C-alpha cells in the first residue's frame, strides 16, 4: 500500500527531471527546490505547507551560518545531508537485545531503565519486546476524552490544517535564523499539541508515548498551543543515550500560551557526544521559543543538556501578555570535547511581566560551556521584573566556562538583576565528604547534584531522578 503510493509519487517526479531509486525510502543527499517539493509531496501536504517550505528555502539560500557563538566546528556541508528518509522499517534494527552494543546496555542498567524500554531505545524491533503500542493507545483515548490533540506533526497537517496554518511560524517565523529557516524548509516531522480552552491536560505529555516517535528524524518541528486557561506539561527526549546516525540536528519548537494558560516544557537531551577524543557526535542547533500571548500566561522551560558534541540552543519567551511569566531552568554539562553555547532570551513587552533565569553550567575534561542570554525590557513593559542567576562549575583545568549575558532595558520602572559565579568544587567540601567515607567520585556527584538542585526540582519527579543519575554517568571518569 505504502509502496504503491511511493511509487506513484516518485513516478510523478520524472516530469521535473528528478530521479530517485524506487527501492530506497530516502531521498538523495543535497538540498534543492525539488527536494523541498518532494518532501512536501511525500508527506501529502496541503498547498500552504509547500508554499511555506519554499519561501523558507528561498530565504535560506540568502543566509549564512551564524558565527557569533562560542563554538568551534568544521564547516557543515549542507549538500551532503539526506534531508528526508522515511521511518526505517523494523527489520533494520537489531533482532534482540543480544545484538545491541553491550556498552550501551551497561549505561541503560546504570540509569535504571526497564528492560522493555531498553529494547525500544536501542531500536530493537518493537514486536520482539514489550508492546508499547498498546500503552500509547490507552493514553490517546484518555487525552481524546478531554479534547487534547496530541499527534505527530504530519498527522496534524492532514487532520487539523486550519490550526497548523493559523499558528505555524507565528513564534519562530521562517526567516528567523539560519537553522530555523533550514528546518522550516525541510522538517520531516515532530509533535503537535493542542489543549482546548480551560482544559488541564490529565497527564504529562511525552514524546516517549507517541506512536512513531522514535524516528522523527533530524529536522523536528514541535508546535504546542495552549488555549485560554489551559495547562500542559510536555517532556521531550529521554535520559537514555540515543543512537542516531544523523550528525546535524536542527529542530524548532514553538509554544503559544493564550490568556491564563500555562505551558511547562522539559527537555532532557542526551545524544551522542562523540568519543573521548572528540570524534563524531551530534551537532544540535535548536530554535525554541514560546510566546506568552495572553494575560497571566506562563511558559516555563527546563532543560538538562548532557549530550551532543555541539549544543546551540536558546529557549526563549516573548512576554507579550500583561502579567505573563517566563522561566528558564537549565543544567548544561560538557565533558571530553563537548561544546555548549546555550541560554535564553526573555523579551518583556507586556506590563508587569516577570522572568526568572537559573542556569547551571558544568564543564569537565576539555569541555567548553557558555551561557548566552538576553533580557530585553521594551519601553512598554512597565514594572518588568527579571532575576538571572548563572553559575558555572569547573571540574578540570582544561575546560572552559563562559558567560555572555545581554541586558537591554528601555523602561525605567524595570528591575533587572543578574548574578553569576564561576568556581571549582571547594577542596573543603570534597574533604568533608571524603572524610565521611564517600569515594571521590560519589562526593563529586553529590556536590554536582546539589549544585543543580534548583533546576532538578523543576522537573517532573521521575525525570528528576533519572536526570541525577544521568549526570553521574556523564561525569564518569572525569574526576580522579
Amino acid at each position: 500500500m505504502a509502496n504503491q503510493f511511493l511509487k506513484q509519487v516518485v513516478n510523478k517526479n520524472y516530469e521535473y527531471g528528478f530521479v530517485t531509486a524506487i527501492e530506497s525510502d530516502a531521498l538523495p543527499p543535497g538540498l534543492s527546490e525539488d527536494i523541498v517539493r518532494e518532501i512536501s509531496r511525500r508527506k501529502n501536504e496541503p498547498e500552504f505547507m509547500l508554499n511555506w517550505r519554499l519561501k523558507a528555502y528561498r530565504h535560506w539560500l540568502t543566509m549564512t551560518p551564524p558565527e557569533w557563538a562560542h563554538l568551534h566546528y568544521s564547516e557543515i556541508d549542507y549538500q551532503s545531508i539526506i534531508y528526508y528518509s522515511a521511518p526505517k522499517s523494523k527489520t533494520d534494527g537489531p533482532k534482540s537485545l543480544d545484538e545491541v552494543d553491550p556498552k550501551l546496555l551497561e549505561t541503560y542498567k546504570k540509569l535504571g531503565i526497564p528492560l522493555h524500554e531498553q529494547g525500544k531505545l536501542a531500536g530493537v524491533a518493537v514486536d520482539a519486546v514489550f508492546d508499547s503500542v498498546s500503552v500509547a493507545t490507552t493514553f490517546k483515548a484518555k487525552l481524546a476524552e478531554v479534547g487534547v490533540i496530541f499527534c505527530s506533526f504530519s498527522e496534524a497537517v492532514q487532520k487539523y490544517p486550519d490550526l497548523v496554518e493559523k499558528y505555524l511560524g507565528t513564534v519562530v517565523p521562517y526567516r528567523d535564523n539560519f537553522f530555523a529557516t533550514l528546518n522550516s524548509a525541510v522538517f520531516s516531522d515532530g509533535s503537535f499539541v493542542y489543549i482546548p480552552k480551560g482544559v488541564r491536560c490529565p497527564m504529562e505529555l511525552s514524546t516517549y508515548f507517541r506512536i512513531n516517535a522514535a524516528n522523527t528524524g533530524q529536522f523536528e518541528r514541535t508546535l504546542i498551543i495552549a488555549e485560554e486557561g489551559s495547562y500542559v506539561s510536555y517532556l521531550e527526549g529521554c535520559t537514555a543515550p540515543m543512537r542516531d546516525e544523523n550528525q546535524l540536528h536542527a529542530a524548532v519548537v514553538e509554544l503559544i500560551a493564550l490568556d491564563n494558560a500555562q505551558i511547562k516544557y522539559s527537555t532532557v537531551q542526551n545524544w551522542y557526544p562523540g568519543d573521548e577524543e572528540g570524534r563524531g557526535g551530534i551537532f544540535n542547533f535548536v530554535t525554541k521559543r514560546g510566546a506568552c500571548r495572553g494575560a497571566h500566561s506562563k511558559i516555563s522551560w527546563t532543560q538538562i543538556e548532557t549530550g551532543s558534541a555541539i549544543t546551540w540552543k536558546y529557549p526563549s519567551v516573548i512576554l507579550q501578555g500583561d502579567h505573563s511569566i517566563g522561566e528558564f531552568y537549565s543544567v548544561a554539562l560538557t565533558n571530553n570535547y563537548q561544546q555548549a553555547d546555550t541560554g535564553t532570551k526573555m523579551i518583556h513587552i507586556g506590563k508587569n511581566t516577570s522572568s526568572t533565569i537559573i542556569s547551571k553550567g558544568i564543564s569537565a575534561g576539555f569541555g567548553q560551556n557558555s551561557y548566552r542570554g538576553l533580557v530585553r525590557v521594551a519601553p512598554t513593559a512597565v514594572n518588568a521584573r527579571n532575576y538571572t542567576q548563572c553559575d558555572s562549575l569547573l571540574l578540570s583545568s582544561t575546560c572552559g566556562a563562559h558567560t555572555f549575558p545581554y541586558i537591554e532595558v528601555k523602561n525605567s520602572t524595570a528591575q533587572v538583576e543578574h548574578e553569576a559565579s564561576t568556581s571549582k568544587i571547594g577542596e573543603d567540601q570534597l574533604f568533608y565528604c571524603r572524610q565521611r567515607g564517600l569515594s571521590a567520585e560519589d562526593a563529586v556527584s553529590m556536590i554536582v547534584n546539589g549544585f543543580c538542585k534548583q533546576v532538578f526540582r523543576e522537573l517532573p519527579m521521575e525525570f528528576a531522578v533519572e536526570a541525577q543519575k544521568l549526570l553521574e554517568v556523564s561525569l564518569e571518569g572525569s574526576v580522579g
Partner: protein
Amino acid sequence: MNAALETPHWLNESFIHSRDFFDQCPEVRDFQKKQRDLFLARGLPTKREELWKYTDLRFLSNRTFVKPSITMDVVQTIQAKHIQNSASVRLVFVNGLFSEKLSDVSLLPEDVICCDLKTAFKNHAEKIKKFIFENVDTNRFPFATLNAALMTDGIFLYIPKHTTMNVPIHILFANTEKNILTASRNIIVADENAQATILEEHCELGGRDYFTNVVTDIYAQPNSRIYYHKIQKESLDATHIAEIFVNQKHDSLVETYSLALGAQLGREDVWVNLNEHHTESSINGFYYLSENNQHIDNHAQVNHIAPLGTSKMVYKGVLEKKSRAVFNGKIYVYTNAQKTVSRQANYNLMLSPDAEVDTKPEFEIYADDVKCSHGDTVGQLDAEALFFLRSRGIEKKIALQMLTRAFAADVLNSIKNPAILAHMNHLLNEMFSDD
C-alpha cells in the same frame, strides 16, 4: 572589513598629511603612515560589530573636523579647573597642544620624567621609543590606531625605580574651539617599586562639537603601584573616544577610576593585561548622564594571563532624561591563570522613563581553580529609602540627590587621594546644582 562604514571625508589624505608635528622624526612619520593605512583599511566600526552593537558612529562620517590650535587665552578660566587644596604637578593641554605657560612642574622630583611628547622625543628618545611604537589590534581598537596616525600631543610620565610620587600629577586637557579633532597619547610608566597618582582630566572651556580621541598606556613594572583617575567632562555636544591600556608585571597594583559626566557620545575602552603573577587590579567607573541623547559606552576587559591575579571591576551609573548607557565588562582567564579571583559589577539607576541601559557582563574562563563572580542590576531608587527621607521633612529633590550621591559614593569613596576625591565630588555636585 566589508562591514566597515565608508571612510569619513574629513579623514582624507590632506587632513592626515597635514600633521607636521613629529615630522622631524622619520621613525614617527613612518609609524604614523603605517597606522593611517591600517585604519583606512579597517574603516569606522559599525553597529554590526559586536563591540559597537549599541553605539552608532555614522554621524562621524558626516562631520567635518579641523586641525587644533591654541587661539584663546585661558589663563584666567583654567584656574578653576585646578585641583583645590592640594599641591600638584600640572600639565595643561589646550586643544590637545601642550601649553608650557599654563603648566606647573616645579614639584617634580629630579629623576622623574614628566613632559609632553615633543620634549620627550627631544630629551628621552630612547626611553619613549620603547613604548610609543606599540602596535595595537586595529580591528579591536580602531580608534587607538587612528590616534596613533593622528597623534597631536600627550604626556610621557616615567617614575624611576624606588620612587614614590606623593604629589598627584594632574594632566588637564581643555578644549576651547569648535570642530577640532585632538588625538592625545599619554604614556605612564612606573618602574620597579615606584608609585604614582595621576589625574587625567578632559574639560571644555568654550569648545563645541569637537572630537577628543585619547589613548593612555599604563605600564606597571614589578612591585609598582599606580593610582590612575580620569575625568571626562567634555562639552555636551562633543565626542570623546578613549582607550586605556594597562600592562601589569608581577606584584604590581593598578587602580583606575573613571568619572564620565560630559560628552554627547562618550566611549571608553579599558584593557588590562595581568601579564605576571600576583597582580592586583581595580577598575572603577561612574557615569552620570544628564542630557537628552547623551550616550556613554564603557567597555572594560581584564585579561588574567598569569596565576594569582586579583581583579575587581565596578561600574555604576545614573541616567536622566533620554540618555543611554552601555556597559560591557569582560573577565578573561587564561588556562595558566590559576587561583584567579575576580569580581565584576555594573549597577544602573534609571531616573527617567526614557533612559536606556544595555549591559553585558561577560566571563571567559579557561582555568579551573578560580573564583569569579559578577552582579548586575538595573533599577530605580529604593522607594522606601525615599519615603524615609521624605517623612523626615526632606524635600523630594534633595532626597533624590542624597540617595543618588550615596549610590555614587560606593565607587568614588575608595579613591585614596583625598584631594582628587574632593575634586571629583565637586564636579558631581555641580551636576546636581545644574538642575
